[in-house]
């Protein structure tokens, strides 16, 4: 092992990275598509998503800045094993609550890399506010893109503005030597203002959610989620988009009172979870457990049976889960 990178070694790594750039661009593109789908299923629609492969100049700057931390022999074998942000996606939420929900979805994603990767979290003393999560493109994808790491950063819009400005002034020079006193002062002022912006966005978020929970007609997955969460008193996970599609297709007036004609939401959820456990299907996400709880109703069951038998892939993974649970139920009855 050598001690740190020399300039010629850095140039050789950059030259090689240029040939690999398309792989990391594709990995970022595919990861972004996966994230959009997962967030849509979770009824999260308010965010901005950007993705990119690291520019060769950015990689050169990083290698030069941290040259003592790397060994050329290691990077030569697999650059991505040490430099994990060659592919990157950034998700910017409008409020801290949305950011936390997004983190939850990304952390549960089946592309999550099984690596020991320290996530920077919201509110560290450094004032950098973001969560970093590593995903890895699965080996079922074309070889040119399979097994590439992609670093997903999640933060709020307000925090992003501060992170970027602080990054330019402080991060690259940890003692902040390059920044003037005036710059430090403005940065401090900005931090205070943006914290305030985050707080106000959170209040708006809560207010909006309260209003949605009382919407008469639930005309989107987001409204359904707000209504059920308002009733249950905690967050719902799972494929809320599919739950909305199913309920919307069988109930003429999809409202909370209509849903509660089948029982209080928390009772229905508990009933569904209990029934699934008996079927040997524990740990199902809330959205499906709730649907299975509704299935206990004699009027509801025939309609869900039609979906189980005849919907094909119309209701996606939720339709598949219904069929799986139905088969388990039939097996138990035999």
């Amino acid at each position, binding site marked *: 092992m050598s001690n740190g990178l020399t300039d010629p070694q850095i140039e050789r790594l950059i030259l090689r990275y240029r040939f690999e750039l398309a792989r990391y661009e594709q990995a970022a593109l595919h990861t972004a598509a996966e994230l959009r789908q997962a967030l849509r299923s979770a009824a999260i629609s308010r965010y901005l998503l950007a993705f990119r492969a690291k520019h060769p100049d950015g990689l050169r700057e990083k290698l030069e800045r941290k040259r003592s931390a790397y060994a050329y022999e290691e990077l030569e074998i697999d650059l991505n094993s040490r430099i994990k942000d060659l592919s990157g996606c950034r998700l910017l939420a409008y409020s801290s609550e949305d950011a936390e929900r997004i983190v939850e979805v990304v952390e549960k994603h089946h592309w999550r890399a099984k690596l020991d990767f320290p996530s920077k979290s919201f509110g560290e003393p450094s004032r950098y506010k973001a969560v970093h999560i590593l995903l890895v493109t699965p080996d079922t994808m074309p070889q040119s893109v399979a097994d590439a790491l992609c670093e997903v950063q999640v933060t709020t819009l307000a925090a992003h503005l501060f992170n970027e400005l602080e990054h330019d002034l402080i991060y690259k020079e940890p003692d902040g030597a390059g920044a003037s006193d005036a710059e430090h002062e403005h940065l401090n002022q900005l931090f205070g203002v943006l914290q305030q912006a985050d707080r106000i966005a959170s209040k708006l978020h809560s207010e909006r959610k309260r209003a949605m929970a009382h919407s008469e007609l639930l005309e989107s997955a987001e409204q359904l989620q707000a209504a059920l969460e308002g009733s249950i008193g905690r967050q719902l996970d799972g494929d809320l988009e599919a739950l909305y599609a199913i309920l919307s297709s069988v109930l*003429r*007036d999809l409202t909370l009172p209509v849903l509660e004609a089948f029982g209080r939401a928390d009772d229905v959820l508990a009933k569904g979870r209990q029934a699934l456990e008996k079927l040997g299907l524990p740990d199902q996400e809330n959205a499906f457990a709730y649907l299975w709880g509704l299935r206990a109703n004699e009027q509801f069951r025939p*309609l869900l049976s039609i979906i189980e038998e005849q919907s094909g892939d119309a209701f996606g993974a939720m339709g598949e889960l219904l069929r799986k649970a139905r088969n388990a139920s039939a097996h138990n009855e035999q």
Partner: protein
Amino acid sequence: MSSRKIKLSDIAGALRKFGRENFHAIDVFADDVLDWDSAGLIPLSSTSAYGHECYRFDDHGESFLLTLFPDKGVLRVQAHEFSTPSLNRAAASTALLGAGLGTAAGIAVSRKGEHFAAGILGMLIGAAIGAGMDSGRNASTPPSPVSGRPHFVFSLAFDQHAGEWKPYSGGLIPWMKKTLLADAS
């Protein structure tokens, strides 16, 4: 306008396929229906509880009631056991039949607007939540509208290649409830 069409027997087939024990009626857009002239529609002398023209047709040994909603561009078909055989075929006026259906089909085209490309859609109508199905079947008079009471529905799309109805899970469901259901306000 879409060139794809269904027959009245396809509409009746939806009730058979998805279960008359679950659904008593189906609403479809009037312009989606093929060959009215040869469909064997018999005008009924009485109007329905909706105040609209009613027709009878038979399919696979079953009788069906067809109610026209010209202002909505929609027709509703429901299985119906007639207390007396309606033999009013002689009174059937091709001109009258054509006028009512023509109006309904024209309204359907304009109400569909840009959604005409979605294909042939249907909405099955089931029981009121917490109630049985008897309000919709075997009554001597056509059933009353169920507007205002929460009840079950089921959104469908007709698969032209397979020649059968399938559950529809797309993004047009809220629009279908507002536009395709005959008794939507």
